[in-house]
């Protein structure tokens, strides 16, 4: 047997395996179940994101499949009444943070598992390839938590994003900075620090533009290589310019390393305003939380909203029982994305991709019927929810408090963070 034979044998074995998975998927559909594909990094550097996401989607499935006394779409009934009480069944796929794997997994979910829709995918770079595949097959893609603005600007008909994107998030950040400046705080310079995939580069592009528009000077513009063994030289450059505000766009591993390196180099930034991602993850605060007192991060969600929307606590408790941690910026968006999708399937009364797509496009859920700070879920022509208002949170004494916008704020911001 030569190498070519081995490869051929491997390929045919893999094909047989996926055919058998496919037939199981088809059987499941006959049994009054709606199969939905869920694509996340379940292994690789961001596997914890996938594990947490799985708990979030199981929570959403519980909300949809069982009766709960909550004013959330699809929660009151067991299953989807529009399809005779059919339950949703989630099929998970692992993209490992790799756009190409995401594309092939999406294809597998669509052709083999016959999923009605796909939800994903955390990494914006992966959401880009998965949504393109969905578009080609006419299967709706609900983008739960990827925030790159470029994603909804590709004239796609099957792409929907209930949560905010980085322009809206960064808009809130700069509006907040501008407000502080007008109140007399010294904020003149910003330092951008971002990872080198779509998420980081898109985020920094928006921030660079907004900084220019509002008269903030960008004194550091550092694009770094993600998952590096060391960030010393990069952080040294940030330290040299000591901007009034450091604005990182980084995933979890780099967030931990970044903060540790800052401490090692004796650099205490005056303020950090983060584009969530790593800075919304509990592990980062477990590891280096003592160095992040006063950190501000954008978010789609805050636990202290429970005072205004009591279902926040109920749903958080449901999630916490599964995951052993509170809902965060990512997991809250994942639960809500699945609910929004289920609501559309319920109204479409079918698993036909085009009809679900139309139902998604017609979605109109008032903010009170979500557990997010959004004023509404209503998609624009491009599939972006235009009413997904972001919030800013500040990390104070082991928890996050909402500090912006004033309509939902529960505390005044501490500024500078390292006072």
């Amino acid at each position: 047997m030569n190498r070519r034979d081995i490869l051929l044998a491997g390929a045919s074995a893999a094909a047989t395996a996926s055919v058998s998975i496919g037939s199981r998927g088809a059987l499941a559909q006959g049994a009054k179940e709606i199969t939905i594909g869920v694509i996340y990094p379940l292994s690789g550097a961001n596997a914890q994101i996938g594990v947490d996401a799985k708990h979030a989607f199981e929570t959403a499935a519980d909300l949809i499949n069982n009766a709960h006394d909550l004013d959330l779409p699809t929660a009151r009934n067991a299953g989807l009444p529009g399809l005779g009480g059919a339950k949703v069944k989630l099929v998970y796929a692992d993209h490992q943070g790799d756009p190409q794997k995401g594309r092939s997994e999406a294809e597998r979910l669509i052709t083999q598992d016959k999923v009605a829709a796909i939800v994903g995918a955390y990494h914006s770079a992966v959401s880009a390839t998965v949504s393109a595949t969905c578009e080609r097959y006419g299967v709706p893609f609900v983008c739960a938590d990827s925030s790159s603005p470029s994603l909804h600007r590709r004239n796609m008909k099957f792409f929907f994003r209930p949560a905010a994107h980085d322009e809206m998030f960064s808009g809130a950040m700069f509006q907040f900075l501008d407000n502080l400046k007008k109140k007399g705080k010294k904020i003149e310079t910003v330092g951008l620090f971002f990872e080198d995939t779509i998420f980081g580069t898109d985020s920094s592009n928006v921030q660079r533009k907004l900084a220019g528009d509002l008269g903030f000077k960008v004194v550091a513009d550092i694009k770094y290589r993600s998952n590096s063994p060391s960030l010393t030289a990069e952080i040294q450059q940030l330290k040299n310019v000591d901007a009034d505000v450091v604005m990182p766009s980084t995933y979890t591993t780099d967030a931990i390393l970044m903060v540790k390196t800052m401490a090692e180099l004796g650099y205490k930034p005056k303020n950090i305003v983060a584009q969530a991602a790593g800075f919304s993850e509990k592990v980062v605060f477990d590891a280096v939380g003592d160095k992040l007192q006063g950190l501000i991060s954008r978010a789609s969600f805050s636990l202290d909203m429970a005072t205004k929307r009591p279902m926040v606590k109920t749903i958080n408790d449901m999630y916490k029982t599964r995951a052993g941690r509170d809902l965060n910026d990512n997991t809250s968006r994942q639960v809500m994305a699945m609910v929004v999708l289920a609501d559309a399937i319920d109204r479409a009364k079918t698993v036909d991709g085009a009809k679900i797509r139309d139902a998604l496009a017609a979605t109109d859920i008032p903010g009170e019927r979500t557990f997010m700070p959004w004023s509404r879920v209503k998609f624009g022509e491009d599939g972006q929810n235009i009413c997904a208002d972001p919030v800013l949170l500040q990390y104070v004494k082991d928890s996050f408090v909402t500090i912006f916008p004033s309509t939902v704020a529960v505390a005044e911001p501490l500024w500078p963070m390292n006072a």
Partner: protein
Amino acid sequence: MTTQALLQVLASGLLMGLIYALIAVGLSLIFGLMDVVNFAHGEFLMIAMYAAFGLVLLTALDPIVLAPLVAALMFCVGGLAYLGVVRFAMRAKANAGMVQIFATFGLAILIQGAAQYLFTPDYRNIQTSWLGGKTFEVGGVFLPLPQIFGGFVSIVAFAGLYLLMTRTDFGKALEATREDQGAVALVGIDRNKVFAIGWGLGAALVGLAGVVLSIFYYIHPQVGSAFALIAYVTVALGGFGSVFGALAAGMIVGVVEAITAIVLPPALKSIGVYALYLGVVFIRPSGLFGRL
């Protein structure tokens, strides 16, 4: 950039480079001994980091104190990897090189999967070390104690390895086995035993690196991959099989990487290292200190 900032970058690069060298030397040792590239080397590093983490939880001792214990544990892991996997892969009649690659590569995937299953993909870190988070400042240049400790361990390990190779009977047996595997059997040296000890030694060295890293880096089932690639480049740059080469190349890689990150956009910081590597490979395919 000020001189002080430049000194900072150089010092950080050099300290990191010493740790790179410590990670790489085990790989080089195993290759030099038996011409096998261990593709599970990064995973050995990861096991060592989890071992350090677990032992800290269990004993409440400082990872610095636990370093010899972790190294001993890793010695067993390395020996077992040889006796349980590599020994069989080496018996392949055809395509032996490919079989060895697949065997160690498969071992790497197995270890990664097992780690993710057993330890979950959550990020861990050791916060109880006496060295943790401590920095020492000389004229505006910050030298983190965990990295200084890492550099120190690296130098001591290299010195120990040098003495072992040149002053002991085992070192002579190792050298002889590497020169001629067939001839050593004639003088009564058990080739398998030497190989198993060689693997154990290689794993123990990367085990020390794991303890050092666990004090200032996060611990995760995939953590090995970030360092493994650098270890391969380091070994190739220094010369496959050359222990001294690994030390020199590790320091060169650390410094070149740090300097590239300030000269070019940091996202391109690996370019300097790979450019240097390519250059060396073109001009001197055996690496800087290779004997091949």
